[in-house]
């Protein structure tokens, strides 16, 4: 067993246990923390795939920003918390079955297809290549994404602000 397998195993375990705990824990803030673990595991998988830039963007945006934002959101929306009173047993069972079905279908597809086994070497310093491609082939999507972010920024402030508040 090489260290790579071990690392893959640990990161995959982190990603999946984080997700499973999110489903099973009862307090919302614990769920948010466990999903943070999951995001971190995914970032680890990105490193294994030679996507260091993306891995640390993932840590910065997901494990850092989104987890914290959701934790703060949980704190601001207390009272809507821990109220799983009406037990929709049938609904839960059906949802579980459909999720398992989706997963099984995907896994069946993955294991019956013969994938290319040899990885392409993307180069040790592919961050430069990402930049060049982003600003040549994908420059219009890039600009659109920046506009989207601006709109989201302004929109979030407008939505979350109280009505009739000055300033």
């Amino acid at each position, binding site marked *: *067993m*090489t*260290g*790579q*397998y*071990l*690392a893959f195993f640990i990161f995959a375990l982190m990603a999946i246990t984080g997700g499973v705990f999110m489903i099973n824990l009862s*307090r919302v*803030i*614990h769920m948010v*923390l466990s999903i*943070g673990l999951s995001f971190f595991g995914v970032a680890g998988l990105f*490193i294994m795939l030679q996507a*260091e*830039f993306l891995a*640390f*963007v993932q*840590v*910065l945006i997901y*494990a*850092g*920003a989104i*987890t*914290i934002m959701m*934790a*703060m959101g949980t*704190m601001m929306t207390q009272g809507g918390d821990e109220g799983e009173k009406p037990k929709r047993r049938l609904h839960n069972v059906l949802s579980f079955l459909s999720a398992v079905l989706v997963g099984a279908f995907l896994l069946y597809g993955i294991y019956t297809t013969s994938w290319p086994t040899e990885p392409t070497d993307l180069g*040790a*310093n592919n*961050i*430069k290549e990402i930049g060049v491609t982003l600003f040549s082939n994908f420059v219009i999507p890039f600009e659109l994404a920046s506009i989207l972010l601006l709109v989201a920024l302004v929109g979030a402030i407008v939505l979350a602000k109280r009505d009739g508040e000055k300033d």
Partner: protein
Amino acid sequence: MFGILDQQFSWLNFTILALAAVALLLVVLLFVMYAIYFERKVIGWMQLRKGPNRTGPWGLFQTVADVLKLLIKEDVVPKKVDRFLFLIAPIISFTPSFMVIAAIPFTENLYFTDINVGLLYYGAISSLSITGILLGGWASNNKYSIMGGMRSVAQMISYEVPLIMSFLGIVLMTGSLNLRDIVHAQIDSGIWFIFPQFIGFVVFLIAGNAELNRTPFDLPEAENELVAGYFVEYSGFRFAFFMLTEYVYTFALSSLMVTLFLGGWDAPFGLTFIPPIVWFALKFLLLVFYLFWARATFPRVKIQQLMEFAWKGLIPVALFNVMLTAVLKTLGIF
């Protein structure tokens, strides 16, 4: 990065990695111990006091005694806290602070990883600590700690933006995120980035100070309004963990600043007979002294001033710096 990972997994490799990490941890802990002593002495002198002077010669063992006291204290967990989060929050907060040090090259040969996205690594990993602070404040089930935690998050997220933007000028100049490449670029061109990137340096200095939650930006733990901020309910070694986080970040951020702006291990004026690690340490101590100096001389700002300063002051200046660097780079001046 996969140098050791690619080899067959063996306990020898594992032991080597673990021992290197433990050695670094000991160095950092030693630094933290004497940084606290140094800080108290410096502030004492500036306020015409003596500072700690009873335990050991010149009070040298004062912080050792303090640490021992913290370690053998009872680990108190208040009754109404969210027990799991309360226990885990200091660890979440501390671990990233130690992880970021791995990216910093101390000399030509003394570095832990030669990671090609070193700067991004620093920014990304250090943002994880905020989660620990927020959860610690929340789990304590105390209004002062939750207020401190919220303030801390707002402040650290706001100041992270100018902090990362102030890197960008350097990244534009060198075309690399690798910290070793950045130092080599400074050695090759013979000029430290503090001169061509002076605006970036000033922004970094201020934003870094705020990122460390140190005076004049220590709102999250403002003693006279919030008791002590997010760690009110903590005592013993869990409190020590939060303190440790702060000082380890002081170590990491000062080292990063030396690497980015002060030429890393480069010797100025051709004084190469002094070994590079000494140069690194000297520059590093200068910046640490600056942080203590600022703490002794500046009054604390108000919370709205703090936030306005980040969004209306520092971020436009940092953006202007990026634009200016890009224009000068295009014109071929840099």
